[in-house]
């Protein structure tokens, strides 16, 4: 699943990401696209609490793809 929150400011990127993780069907993973750098600190923390693993890739200046997968 993809979630594009580019252009959005705090707290929307993390709020939407948390909502999407909660609603994510089994077996799927979530890709969050953002240009808001504070997410790089907040999303991994919330992901850990929800049992997700985070990996972050820089895809632009400044844009990031945050991939969230359920921990096995």
């Amino acid at each position, binding site marked *: 699943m993809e979630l594009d929150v580019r252009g959005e400011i*705090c*707290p929307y990127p993390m709020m939407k990401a948390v909502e999407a993780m909660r609603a994510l069907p089994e077996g799927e993973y979530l890709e969050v696209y953002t240009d808001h750098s504070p997410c790089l600190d907040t999303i991994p*923390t919330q992901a850990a609490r929800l049992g997700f693993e985070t990996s*972050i*890739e*820089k895809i632009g*200046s400044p844009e990031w793809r945050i991939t969230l997968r359920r921990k096995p």
Partner: protein
Amino acid sequence: MTTTTTAEPRTGPLRLNLQPGVGLLVIAAAGLVSLWAARADSQFAVFWLMGMAFGFVLQRSRFCFTSAFRDLFLLRDGRVMKGVIAGMAVATVGFTLIMSDRLPNSRLEVVAPEAHVSPLALALIVGGLAFGLGMVLAGGCISGSMYRMAEGYLGSWVAFAGIMTGLLVAAHTWNWWWRLDIGRAPRLWLPNIAGYGGGVAITLLALAGAYVLILWWESRAGLVIPLTLMTHDPAVTFGDELRRTYRAIFVRGWPAISGGLALGTLNVFLFAYEHPWRITGEISAWASALAGKLNLGLAPPPLLGVETLAGCTLSGAEGVFLNHMTLSNLGLFAGALVAALLAQEFKLRVPRKPIRYAQSLGGGILMGYGAGLAVGCTVGAFFSAVPSLAANGWLFAAALTGGAFLGTKALRWLP
């Protein structure tokens, strides 16, 4: 043996990026401004450079007072608030030494010069609630909106227009509040009743208590958020090590705790030179001067009692446009712009949902009005007031917390 991992992003294929080059040009231009400012007035140059330092640290550590309060409720995450507390603890020690140097006897019924002590008025609570709600709606407090303006967030420009409007409205209603409430309210500076030793001990214990309370609050969400500190692989070559040092300072975001400690230290330095860090007084002067220039009868009247207050007082029409604090605020933009460009984090960000503009404007107006009543924003009336050993810093913090709570409720209704 313990291990931790950091969130340094893997970097995909990137096009050639001009931002660091533009950043160097901005640094050169800022150097020229310093030289000009040093000729005009040596204070101007110092405040310009200190403003740049504040802006640089804010951007690098993504330091946001709004998230410090809001994320307590929204995410049960106290990461930024811990940084705020650590910074205020450092500043408390430094401020106390400076104040006791300037006013050795604290038991007189006077307050150390430039300490941010203001009345414990109803207006402070109303202002804090409005500010807390407004900053959550707008996605940033005043300092936060300022460094985000420099990063290219269009919404923050709209919020800043709201802030100026709110400060102008506050100036128009100031005399009413002064007569009814602020002018009659008591002020409480801890050293007057407990000495410097007592004042500093009470403040540090209260900050330690707040820190522990946050740890407890976080733990209720099942996983405590670790205090992130930078980590890295052992480098092998000189080039690796240089690159890593550069990236740690200029590219990767700093942990919130480093940002808080750096801001607290800078705040002490600025007070040692002149007075604590403050922002809104000058923005109010800009708003009032602009209103006066427009000749539409919008200029506020002379304001009652502001000469008896220290800190971020509102300006009536008589406000001076260019003074040392103008340089400090402009420096904040310049420092944040330099930081954003060097980190390749500058981008024009345009909100896609129309309601975001309304939120930014409305939130800005609430913040401006609240900062007017509270004699300062999260910086002047909180981050500089608590270390001034002033009770109003704590009352404002409580009201901000309430306002931020209301804000998180409001956020859930909005799309």
